[in-house]
């Protein structure tokens, strides 16, 4: 797939190389998933400053946050950020590992306003706390629900839900 930036034409691999160089040492395991997605891993301590720079990149800015998914891999949790670049019409998928013991990661909802509800959903269903989120309430489940159902070790107990 060809990407045009001004008069320069890039292939998907070249774009991935450019992103990897721009964030050398921060983004690891950078690879291309056909046809148009760059997949990379990221340390959670670096999430915010990388997010800010990705949002403000010249020419290839990832200016739109498509969605956030939380995945429970049993050994650890993962917060997946799927970004879209209107300039290059490509996607960037960031995988941030979150330890189960302290399931918390910093919020990005001031960088991409779209992150707001996704972070609430991930907190609600997977129990990842997004630190600095202005309004981290449950979103799909009731306000007094106990536990996070999409965790693989979740056990549903009737006594947890007095108002059912």
């Amino acid at each position: 797939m060809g990407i045009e930036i001004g008069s320069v034409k890039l292939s998907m691999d070249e774009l991935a190389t450019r992103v990897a160089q721009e964030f050398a040492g921060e983004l690891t395991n950078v690879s291309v998933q056909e046809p148009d997605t760059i997949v990379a891993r990221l340390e959670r301590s670096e999430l915010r400053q990388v997010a800010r720079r990705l949002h403000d990149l010249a020419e290839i800015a990832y200016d739109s946050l498509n969605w956030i998914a939380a995945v429970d891999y049993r050994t650890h949790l993962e917060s997946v950020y799927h970004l879209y670049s209107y300039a290059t019409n490509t996607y960037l998928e960031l995988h941030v590992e979150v330890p189960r013991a302290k399931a918390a990661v910093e919020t990005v909802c001031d960088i991409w306003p779209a992150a707001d509800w996704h972070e609430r959903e991930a907190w609600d269903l997977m129990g990842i706390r997004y630190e600095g989120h202005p309004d981290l309430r449950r979103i799909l489940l009731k306000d007094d629900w106990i536990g996070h159902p999409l965790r693989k070790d979740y056990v549903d107990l009737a006594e947890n839900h007095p108002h059912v």
Partner: protein
Amino acid sequence: MSDEFVTTVPDAALELALSRIASSTAAGEGSDMQGLRLDEVVVNMGPQHPSTHGVLRLVVTLDGEMVKDVIPVIGYLHRCKEKLAEKRTYYQYIPIPDRTEYVAGMNCEWGYVMTVEKLAGIRPTRRAEVIRVIMAELNRIASHLVAVGTFTADLAPLGTAMVFYMFRDREQILDLLESASGARMMFNYFRFGGVRYDLPDGWVEKCREFLDGFPKMVQEYESLVETNAIFLQRCLGKGVISQQDVVDYAITGPNARASGVAHDLRRTRPYSVYPELDFDLCLGQHGDVYDRYKVRIEEMKQSRAIILQCLDMLPKGPVQVGSLKPPYVITPPPGAVYTAQENPRGEYGTYIVSDGSRYPYRLKYRDPCFINLQIFPKLLSGNKIADAVAISGSMDLVLGGIDR
């Protein structure tokens, strides 16, 4: 009634609305003892309000007629569809996506099936691909008819006249979909590598017959509303979504295109046989309520053109890859894949993590309505309450998808 019958179900949204009023009020100025301003009222719109098209609840703070603050509350239709996926095989799960955006079941099923096909490396047959496009575009027309019909009912000047015209014509589409799949709305029609049934005898002719009459129907809709002064006054310049908002809030679908953002997955991330088809993107200029209405009307015309091209190119051959029966058990290799298709409401994506077993390890929907709804507090604040109803109608929400 004694106190023991009074339940104290916590209501975080209501408390939030009240606390926001309290914190914005200067001490003592026009406020009562709890710090509430005397001229501000908190109104609960929904979850059973007819204009919410389902079970959306909006906690609205009103100053007279003006909306000052909106807190959307969702989850009333939450049926754990993502958790359900982890307990079902890939094949057993096919009927569930129908129930997310239930007025566009074909499109939603396609989104799920396409993701699994990419994960497992299955390629559907050519005839199945073309049939899929026909079904999805028919469903897009049906879905837009519901969207525009209920939206005009929200606006009141026409009463419910338009709804009945549109639902009457939508019934013809549902008949077509039913004769192909066996169901009106919950189709369960797509299979990995194809579709469940081939088109029945005479289906193509019936479909052409409907499409031939369709331009006249659209003309009727347009003549009903676009010359109506009240309709125009209530639509023009109301609820403007800027292009920056589209980017910031990741708004997709007709709502984004009404703001002039040329983003359509059928073009920007083409799938199936869309690259071979000739159709225009319908773009608005102002991003107001009227443009969102008009974009949907124009998209129905484009969908008609797409279906006609597909009927012309419909190849002969099997509708299921491999044997006649679809693959009941599939075990995709470990990995994660996200694909999306252009739903009538925007980018409907499915992210599936596979651990190599017969069950999806994790399934996540990217639902366009869930994301389009996020802009509501910003979009509705500062409007009159009656306009807020019009604006939310023009956003075309389906709660089955929002709550999942």
